[in-house]
C-alpha cells in the first residue's frame, strides 16, 4: 500500500485542499453487532477537482461521503473543511455548512414527491445566498421542458438530473454525488455525468463522485479506490476523458 502522506504532499503542490480527513473511523452498533464502516480513512479533495471514489459495495463510500457532506458524524478521527474541523462542529454549524456550502446528489434521487421539478429546486434556492433561478439550474441539466412535472411523471434519469439541478442551484462550493448513475442505463448515465462535468468545469465546483463503475473513473482528475473501510489506492489521471467518450 502506498504511503499516504507522500501522495498528499505530491498533489498539494498544485491544489488547495478543500477536504482533509485524518484517521476517520465510523462504527455502527446494532445490538450485539458492531460494524466498522470506516477504519481510519486519510484522504483529501482539492479545489476545483473532480474526484471519483471507487469501491465494492459495502466498503464505506456512502458513509465517507455523508460525513464529508455533514449529514453524519464520524466516530473518530478528523475531517477538515477549508481548515474548519467538521468533527467538532455542532448541529447548528453543520446545518449552516450544508445550507451554504454543499450540494448533495443522492443514490436514490430523493425527490419530494409532492413538489414539481421546479419546486424541488426552488425548495433549495429559497434558502440559499446567491442561487441561480430554478429555471437556470434545470436548463443546465437540460430539463427546461419538464419543469412542471411531478417526480412520478419523470423517468429515473430525469429525476436524477433534477436532483443534480437541485444540488448545483445554490452554486455550492462542493458537489457530492453518491452513485448518481447507479440506477441508470449507460446512455442516460452519460447525460447525467455530462451535467456534473459541466458544472465542475464551468463553475469550478469541487466535486466528489461515488461509483463502482471503473470506466467512470476516467472522467476524473483523481481516483480514490476504497476497500473495507480504508483508502486502498489513489491515482491521478493524466487527462480527463469527456463523459461522451465513455461507454460500458
Amino acid at each position: 500500500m502506498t504511503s499516504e502522506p507522500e501522495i498528499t504532499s505530491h498533489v498539494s503542490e498544485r491544489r488547495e485542499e478543500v477536504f482533509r480527513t485524518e484517521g476517520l473511523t465510523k462504527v455502527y452498533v446494532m445490538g450485539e453487532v458492531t460494524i466498522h464502516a470506516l477504519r481510519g480513512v486519510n484522504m483529501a479533495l482539492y479545489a476545483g477537482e473532480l474526484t471519483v471514489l471507487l469501491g465494492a459495495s459495502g466498503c464505506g463510500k456512502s458513509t465517507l461521503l455523508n460525513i464529508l457532506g455533514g449529514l453524519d458524524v464520524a466516530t473518530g478521527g478528523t475531517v477538515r473543511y477549508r481548515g474548519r474541523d467538521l468533527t467538532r462542529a455542532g448541529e447548528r454549524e453543520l446545518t449552516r455548512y450544508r445550507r451554504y456550502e454543499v450540494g448533495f446528489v443522492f443514490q436514490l434521487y430523493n425527490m419530494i414527491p409532492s413538489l414539481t421539478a421546479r419546486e424541488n429546486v426552488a425548495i433549495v434556492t429559497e434558502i440559499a445566498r446567491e442561487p441561480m433561478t430554478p429555471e437556470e439550474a434545470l436548463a443546465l441539466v437540460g430539463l427546461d421542458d419538464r419543469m412542471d412535472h411531478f417526480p412520478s411523471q419523470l423517468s429515473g434519469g430525469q429525476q436524477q438530473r433534477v436532483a443534480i439541478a437541485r444540488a448545483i442551484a445554490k452554486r455550492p462550493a462542493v458537489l457530492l454525488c453518491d452513485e448518481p448513475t447507479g440506477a441508470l442505463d449507460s446512455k442516460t448515465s452519460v447525460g447525467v455525468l455530462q451535467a456534473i462535468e459541466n458544472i465542475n468545469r464551468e463553475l469550478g465546483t469541487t466535486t466528489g463522485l461515488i461509483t463502482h463503475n471503473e470506466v467512470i473513473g476516467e472522467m476524473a482528475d483523481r481516483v480514490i479506490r476504497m476497500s473495507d473501510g480504508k483508502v486502498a489506492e489513489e491515482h491521478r489521471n493524466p487527462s480527463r476523458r469527456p463523459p461522451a467518450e465513455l461507454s460500458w
Partner: protein
Amino acid sequence: MRALNRKLFRDLSTLKGQVAAIGVVIAAGVMTLIVFMTTLDSLTLTKDRFYRDFQFADVFADLKRAPNSVGERLREVSGVNHVETRVHAPIRMEVPDFGDPVRGRLISLPDGRQPNVNRLYVREGALPEPGRPDQVAVNEVFAEAHDLGVGDCLTVIIRGSMETLAIAGIVLSPEFVYQLGPADLFPDYERYGVLWMNERALANAYGMDGAFNNVVLTLQAGVVPGPVIDSLDQILAPYGGIGAYGREDQMSHRFVSDELDQVRAMATILPAIFLGVAAFLLHVLMGRIIRTQREQVAVLKAFGYTNGEIAFHYALLTGVIVLLGSVLGILLGAWAADGLARIYMEYFRFPEIGFRVRGWVIGLAVAVAGGSAFFGAFAAVRGAVKLPPAEAMRPPAPERFHRGLLERSPLWRFIGQPTRIILRNLSRHRMKSALSVSGIALSGALLLVGSYQFNAVDHMIDIQYRLIQRMDVHLTFTDPTPERSIGELRHQPGVRYAEGYRSVPVRLVNRGASYQTSILGIEGDSSLRGLIDRRHRPVALPPEGMLMTDYLADYLGVFPGDQVEVEVLEGHRRTVSVPLAGTVDEPIGVSAYMDRRALNRLMREGPALSGAWLLTERREERALYGELWRMSRIASIGLIRDAESNIREHMEETVLAFMAVALLLACSIAFGVIYNNARIALAERMRELATLRVLGFSRGEVAWILIGEIALLTVIAIPLGWVLGTLFAWSLSYAMSVDMFRIPFIVTTWTYAFSAAGVLVASFLSVLLMVRRIRKLDMVSALKTGE
C-alpha cells in the same frame, strides 16, 4: 418558504381522508366544549339576571294561617330586606276540552301592584286590575299546554266553590322557572298550573280574610339565610308553620341548579374525552406521516433546512388540521347550542335565554384543542427534528424477525403465505399495532359512552315504575285523615285496590349536614310502593327505624345503625332521634321511609293517612275522577301512569338530546378513526402489496393481507373498547348524579353490542373503501415512488 408551503398543501390534500377524520374528532371536542360551556354560561347569566331583576326570594315558608299583623314582626327580623305575605290556595281547574283532572295553585298578588318579592314578568296582557275579583294571571307553560290566551276563561274550584276567572295576563315567575306540582317528580304542564289573583279576592274565596299562609322574603346583601330561617320558624310556629327553607330547597331553583351541575359535568368530561382521543389520534397520525416522510425530512436537512424550520413545517400541518377542526366545531357548536336553547326554553321558563357563543368560550375551546393537538403531535415532530439526515436517507434499517411462539407451533404449517404476512407484520410492529388497537378501542369506547344512557335511562324509568311506584293514581288529602277513608275509596268506580300512606315533612340532620325532605310512612305489607336494594331485591320495611335512599344517607354521612335527628315540620314540631335501619337504592328522588304505624307513633297521633294510592281500571277512569273531584278531603290527584310517559318525554328531550349529539359525534369519530387506521395501513403496505401483485398474487390474496390485518386488530380492540367505554361511562354517571336523578350506572348487553357493532360497521365500510383502492392499485407507480 414558498415551496415548503406548497408541499404542506399538497400533503394536506393527499391526506384529506385522514385530515378529515382527525378534524372531525377535534371538531367534536370543540363542539361539546362550546355547547356545554355556552349553555352553562348563558343559563347561569339568564338565571342570575331573572332572579335579580325580579327579586327572587331567598327564604320561603308555609304555614296554616297567621293574621296579617304577624307580617310586621317578620319585617323586623334582622337581615330581612323585603317580605311578602301571601295566600296560597290549592285548586282544581276545569279546562275546556280536557277531561283529566287538573290541579293547580292560586297565589295572591298585592292589589294593584307588583309584589316586592317574586315579581312577575308579564309576557302578554297585564296583571289583574286592582279590585277585580274575577281576573287571573296564568303561568306561561300552563297557558301554552292548553292553548289559552288573554281573555279566555277558566273554571277554578277553590275550597269547593266554583269560580269563573278571566285570564288577564300570561306571566313568568322566578319561583316557577321549572313548574312542578307538589307531589310530582316531573313537570306536567297539562295537569298542573300556577295562577295569580288579587289578594283580597283570593283571601275571600279561600277563607283567609286578613290572614296569610305563605311568606316569601329577600335578604339584605351578604346575609346568610340560616339565622333568618330560625327566627321565621320561631315566629310562625304558633301559626302552624311547617318550616321555613332557603333557596337551596326551593323546587324550581333546585332543578335549575341540578341541571346546571349536570351541564357543568358534561362540559368537563365530554370535551376531555373527545379532545383526549383527538390528541391521541394526532399523535398516531403525525407520527406516521413523519415516518413515511422520513426521507423527505432527511433531504430537507441535507440541504440545510434548520430543525426549527422543519419543526415549524410539521407544526403548521398540525395547526391547519386543528384550525379546520376548530372552525367546524365552532359552527356545529353554535348550531347545537341554539338547539339546546330551544329545549331549555321548553323546560326552564325565563323571560329570554340569551344564548350567545361568547368569545372567551371559543377562545377556550380552540386553546384546549390546540393544546391537546400540541401534546399529540409534539413527540412526532420532535422525532422528525431529531432524525439525523444520513440515517433517514437509507431505507429504514432491515427489520429483524423472531420466530414467535405461533411460528414454532405445528399450526404454522397450515397458515397460508398471506396470513403469515399478516401475523408477522403485526408481531413485528407491536407498538404500531398497539396504537391501532387503542385507536379503534377508543372509538368503541366513545360509542359506548354515547349510547349507554339511552338504555340506562330506560332502565331507570322501568325500575321507578315497575318496581317502586306501582300505583296508577296517587291521592293526597287536605289533612291527615283516619284509616277508614281507604274503605270508602275501595268502593269508588274502577278502583281495584287502595292503600293509604302517611307523609310527613321533615328536616333530617346529622352533624353539620341537613336535608329537607319527607318521611313516607308505608304499610308494612305494601303492594303498591316497592323498596329495593342495589340488585333490585325487595327490602323489608323494619317495624321501627327508618330507611333512606343511599344517595341521602351518603349526603348526610349516616350508616345503618346510626341515629338520625329528625325535625318534624308539621303539627307539633318536635325533634326526635330515629335509628337508620338500612338504605334503599332508588334512581329518582331523595326520601326516607318508615312503617306507617311507626310514623304515626312518632307523630303521636292515631292511625292517620296523608293520602292514598290506587290501582284502577282504565275504562272507568272518567267516572272515578268525577267521584274523586267531589270529595272535599282530596287535595290532589296524581296520575302516575301519565307521569311515566311524561318522564320518558322529559328525559328524551333533555339528557338524551345531549347524548344523541354525543352519539352522532361518536359515530363519526369511530368511522374517522377506523378509516384513518385502514388508510395508513394501506399507505404503509402499498409497496409490499404492489410487489406481491407483481409476483403473481391475486387481488383477493393481496386484499386479504390488509383486510385480515384490520379484522384482527378490530377483534382485539372491541373488548378493550368495552373496558375503556365502561370507565368513561362510569365517570360521566358519577359526575352527573344530582339530587333528583341518579341515572344508574348500568351498561346493558345491548350497549356493549352496539359499541361492537358500530366498530364492526365502521371497519367494514373502511375495508370496502380500501378494497376499491387496492383494485385500482397501480403496480408500476406504487413501486416507482417508494413512500
